[in-house]
């Protein structure tokens, strides 16, 4: 099975293109150190029925100064009133250890129940919060302490997305791409972009600049790598995995293939694809240097603060916004090249699954 390279794909990519992305490497190192500190602070709180899961920059290994800790207590087991106390304990211990609490949306910083995630994919009861938690669990999450519940739920989600995808299992298409999963990833991205405007209205522009920068970069990154993960089923899975699917209609091996991707960060997935598909060096540099510059900017407290306070009506002529917009345009150009210009089969998949 051709999984994303078992060695660190970002280092391999740096070596291949002859560049060093200092801000990315610093953010990754800081994330690992921060994770250790949080692990220590939360010791003893997780159980086989309840995993402490983090999302956002910590899970993506893009930890910068002032990053929040977006966490949830993921419960997959017998109902227990004590779970609430454990969740409260997680919040208190993180505050005591001086970590920034999650935002005020209510999506993080509380309890998440596996049944909603697994049973309500689509339909009336699949709320915005449920979709967000579910998709982020697959795209940018990590766990502390006992990971049993987390691992079970990730497997169950992948199983639902692939086993319920009759087109994937029984269809005659030459492409083997999990469309049900891909559509949910696309839906989530579109939801984020629509909610951005809703928040702009509801919060009277508060935090607009920072949210806009994240939308252009980190949110877009996870959308792109979510698509790549789905396309990997066709492009990077081994012939055995695809044979199991086409001959036996079994998705087990494909689920395991995708599970390996859930263990990687979005930047690692992007780097792995650039390496595996032997994408033009200039595109790789464009993407990673843009992201590196973005992380450097976000790590600069004064610039981050400026973005946080920036209102939509103030963007014209604002130097920090102009800077981040420049990086986002470079990043967008890189993505357009990757998905549409540098690899024939990836281009075909993008048109086939991404457009119609």
């Amino acid at each position, binding site marked *: 099975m051709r999984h994303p390279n078992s060695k660190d794909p970002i280092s391999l990519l740096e070596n291949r293109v002859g560049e060093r992305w200092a801000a990315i490497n610093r953010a990754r190192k800081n994330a690992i150190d921060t994770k250790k500190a949080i692990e220590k602070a939360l010791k003893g709180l997780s159980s086989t029925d309840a995993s402490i899961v983090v999302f956002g920059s910590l899970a993506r290994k893009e930890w910068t100064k002032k990053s929040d800790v977006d966490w949830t207590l993921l419960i997959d087991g017998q109902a227990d009133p004590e779970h609430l106390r454990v969740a409260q304990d997680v919040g208190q211990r993180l505050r005591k250890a001086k970590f920034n609490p999650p935002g005020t949306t209510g999506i993080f910083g509380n309890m998440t129940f596996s049944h909603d995630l697994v049973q309500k994919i689509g339909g009336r009861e699949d709320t915005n919060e449920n979709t967000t938690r579910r998709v982020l669990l697959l795209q940018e999450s990590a766990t502390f302490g006992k990971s049993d519940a987390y691992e079970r739920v990730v*497997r169950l989600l992948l199983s639902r997305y692939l086993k319920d995808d009759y087109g994937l299992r029984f269809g005659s298409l030459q492409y083997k791409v999990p469309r049900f999963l891909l559509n949910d990833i696309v839906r989530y991205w579109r939801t984020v972009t629509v909610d951005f405007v809703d928040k702009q209205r509801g919060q009277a522009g508060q935090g607009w600049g920072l949210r806009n920068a994240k939308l252009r970069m980190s949110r877009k990154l996870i959308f792109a790598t979510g698509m790549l993960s789905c396309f990997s089923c066709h492009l990077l899975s081994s012939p055995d995995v695809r044979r199991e699917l086409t001959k*036996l209609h079994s998705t087990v091996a494909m689920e395991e293939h995708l599970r390996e991707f859930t263990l990687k960060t979005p930047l690692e997935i992007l780097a792995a694809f650039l390496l595996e598909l032997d994408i033009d060096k200039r595109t790789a540099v464009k993407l990673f240097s843009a992201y590196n510059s973005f992380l450097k900017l976000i790590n600069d407290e004064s610039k981050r603060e400026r973005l946080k306070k920036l209102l939509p009506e103030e963007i014209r002529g604002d130097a920090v916004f102009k800077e981040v917009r420049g990086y986002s345009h470079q990043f967008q150009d890189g993505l357009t090249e990757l998905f549409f210009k540098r690899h024939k089969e990836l281009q075909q998949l993008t048109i086939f699954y991404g457009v119609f």
Partner: protein
Amino acid sequence: MRPIGFSTGALAYSDFRRGLAMLRHKSIHAVELSALREAELAPLIEAIDSLDLSQFAYISVHAPSKYGKEVESRIVNLLRTVSARKWPIILHPETVHDFSVWQSFRGLLLIENMDKRNQTGRTARELELIFAKLPQAGLCFDLGHCRQVDPTMNEAFLILREFGGKLGQLHVSEVNTRSTHDPLSGSSIGAFEKIAHLIPTNVPVILESPVSEADIQVEIDHARKALPVPTSNGNRKREGRTLHTAAI
């Protein structure tokens, strides 16, 4: 038809004689003599010669699931009576203090995959580490444990793909959220059915479901539903309906 029997410990807690009595005069030809608690092993071994086990074509013994390092050699010595009769010995890997003392049982030793409470022996990857230390040992595949660790049953598929050749016995029951055994339910039957076609029909099935004597046959019928026998055309026959192989 798969050989299906019971663990004496499931039928009668800590009382193998009563468990055997509950199976007597029934068309059940497989049994696991349970000595899950350390104190149960010596009395069981002492009683073996006097037990009427003539109805059983398959007999195994479950070794204690918890004991101190200082008694490990004594337990191994007691179990030599079992191996001398060529009966398989079921062992929880996390109980082992010194793997080398268990090696002499060779293929008669069946390592059981564990439930979520344990930190070892739960997955194909974790079992690989155990079998590296006991290369000749076989596998007692506990479907309930495996489903508790991974309800998708993908891990079961991976374990069978990796260690199917070592398969010596099955443990079947529903393992609930408190990690105790229950009778099979509709959902566990459905889950086990997904991988039944990967299990050879001659592998003995030992039920660990705690049931009353009156419900023994009901539970066996449920086990037959959960583990349908593949037909010659590759499909699986179950109670009048044919299932396609691609359930997983």
